[in-house]
């Protein structure tokens, strides 16, 4: 429908000579999205006023020679508009720019990743797009304050000026695991994301063994990453026993920070432990 309307306007513009050349044709060059405005329409008799832009079109039947008032909220989509005034015998065109409102109303805040290991440099990115209350991207530069906070560490902050409506920053993940709050603020508008900081790879692995009948009870010390965080439960720890040319192995998930299993007791067996690419100690079973 809008396309047909725009084609109609284009046809009018192409086929009709410009009239009202001498009359006062007063259109504001620019208004803010959603602001009230008026247009002085020259001539006498009746006519039709068209305002056509990228997201909106307005048609109004008017009496020429009057000032036409448009209340607040009439034009709200930012962009370049064509204004056409037609009467029975002629038409006149002009242009009107609708700029985004200067007051930010909403932030689109993209924080990535939502989960990452602790103690990584510049590993968290935050990108903000600033919008007015009519969902227009505000291209006018304005400061965006970013803050990444964690109860166990000082907050990281940075302030970045928007460019073409967007601003972005990078932050470090903190040494302690937990849920960080990542806030972007423009004026009194804020948007919050949560970034989960999880333990890294095990820093070291130590297994101890004790006999249990025909088997060996194996248990690791509490497994921690290099920042001292307990490695997440469920992390696989692989126990391997080599004996007389045979091999036994078992993948055990950490439960409450430790991994425990039982393996056959063979005198002279060598038992080792690993998790991912981290190797632990070896035990030679002599009992």
């Amino acid at each position, binding site marked *: 429908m809008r396309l047909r309307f725009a084609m109609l306007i284009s046809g009018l513009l192409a086929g009709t000579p410009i009239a009202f050349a001498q009359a006062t044709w007063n259109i504001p060059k620019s208004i803010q999205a959603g602001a009230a405005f008026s247009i002085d329409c020259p001539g006498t008799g009746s006519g039709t006023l068209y305002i056509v832009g990228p997201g909106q079109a307005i048609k109004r039947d008017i009496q020429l020679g009057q000032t036409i008032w448009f209340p607040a909220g009439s034009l709200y989509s930012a962009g370049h508009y064509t204004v056409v005034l037609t009467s029975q015998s002629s038409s006149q065109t002009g242009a009107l720019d609708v700029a985004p409102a200067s007051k930010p109303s909403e932030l689109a805040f993209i924080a990535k990743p939502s989960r990452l290991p602790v103690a990584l440099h510049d590993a968290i990115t935050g990108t903000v797009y600033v919008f007015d209350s009519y969902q227009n991207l505000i291209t006018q530069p304005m400061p965006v304050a970013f803050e990444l906070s964690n109860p166990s560490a000082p907050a990281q902050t940075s302030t970045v000026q928007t460019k073409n409506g967007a601003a972005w920053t990078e932050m470090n993940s903190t040494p302690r695991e937990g849920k960080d709050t990542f806030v972007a603020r423009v004026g009194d508008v804020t948007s919050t994301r949560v970034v989960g900081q*999880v333990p890294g*790879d095990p820093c070291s692995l130590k297994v101890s063994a004790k006999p249990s009948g025909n088997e060996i009870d194996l248990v690791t010390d509490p497994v921690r990453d290099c920042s001292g965080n307990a490695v997440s439960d469920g992390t696989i720890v692989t126990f391997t026993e080599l004996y007389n040319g*045979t091999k*036994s192995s*078992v993948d055990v*998930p950490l439960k409450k920070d430790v991994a425990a299993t039982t393996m056959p007791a063979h005198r002279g067996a060598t038992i080792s432990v690993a998790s991912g690419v981290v190797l632990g100690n070896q035990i030679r079973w002599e009992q």
Partner: protein
Amino acid sequence: MSKGRVLAFTLMAATVILVVIGTLWPVSTAAAYAGGENVIGSSSTPQAAVRNLGDEIRAQAWQKAYASLGNKAKFTQSEFKGDLTSYYPDLRTTATLNSFDVQPLHATDTDADVRFEMHWSTVVGTINSTRNVHVVRNGSEWQVDWPFKKQTIVPPQVIPVNYLRWDVINRTSGDDWGAQDVEAPHVRIIDMHPVQRAEGLFLLGELINEDVVPAYVSVTATLLSKDQKPIETEGSFDEISHQLLPKQVTPFLIRFPDVSLSDVGSVRMNPFSTLVPASADPVIEVQNEKLNPAPDASLNGELLNQSGEIANVAHVLATFYDKSGQVVWVGDQYVDHALLPQTPVAFDIHIPEDLARKVSSQRTTVATYRFGGDQ
């Protein structure tokens, strides 16, 4: 009457006549498959006796098969059936005997030993099992002494389990477009290289879940020609352990039949991961693994379920390395019996003869599946 009508009438009449003949005097094999009269012939030789038993097992005529055995007093018909089809739901429960081979090993006038190789059709392909059966003469007939293996039965009990479980809640359509979703698990290919064989090109490698959450993973690869045009794209299908717990490593093998390595300029690898609800049980120990050299190179060992939960299907994946630690082959085997708590189940993975001499070490992982619920 037109020629067409004559032809139609002739065909119809011939069909009716053939149906009547087939019904009144059926071919014996057809009758056996239809569940009617069996095709079983005389057991006048040891091999014939075993073949007859195989036909009865294939027709699932358990009563007749049991009745034909010479040592049936040692076990019941139910136990005999359970020996072949399992008491607990597993791959054998839904399998059918597709074919079998009989090979004489030793024979005298009164008894004989025969190798009975059964080829079972299962949902994951053909699974073979072999029994060496003793056959004894009874008058003019021969009877099979079935080598009955008593199945382990776990006594009815309640086993308390306390294991980790992960569930996932994803974002909804009501969230704004900048809102976060739960991050997909971070996985990484830690090894990959091609192997050219007569059957085609194989890509072997290993994938690690570097994250702290379980991941459903798969790997696809696209072969690119020397002028960077795609030749073919294939996935690892089931030659990978699809569910990886944190820091768990799986091997993968991707087959490109009829592709030559000399035609390949580069390979584009695409590891895929997504969050899935998962649990950390059951824990499966791989016991007494042993590499057997060529001929008949293989890796065998036993699986031991250390948990209280029964694993209905176990998929064993073995990664074979050379002396420098590079992956030289990935082999796998589906175990056709359920893994009961603390009950060892044997596995045997074949290694291609030409690669066996390169194998220096191996790492074995086990993926388990449960019938009637999630893993």
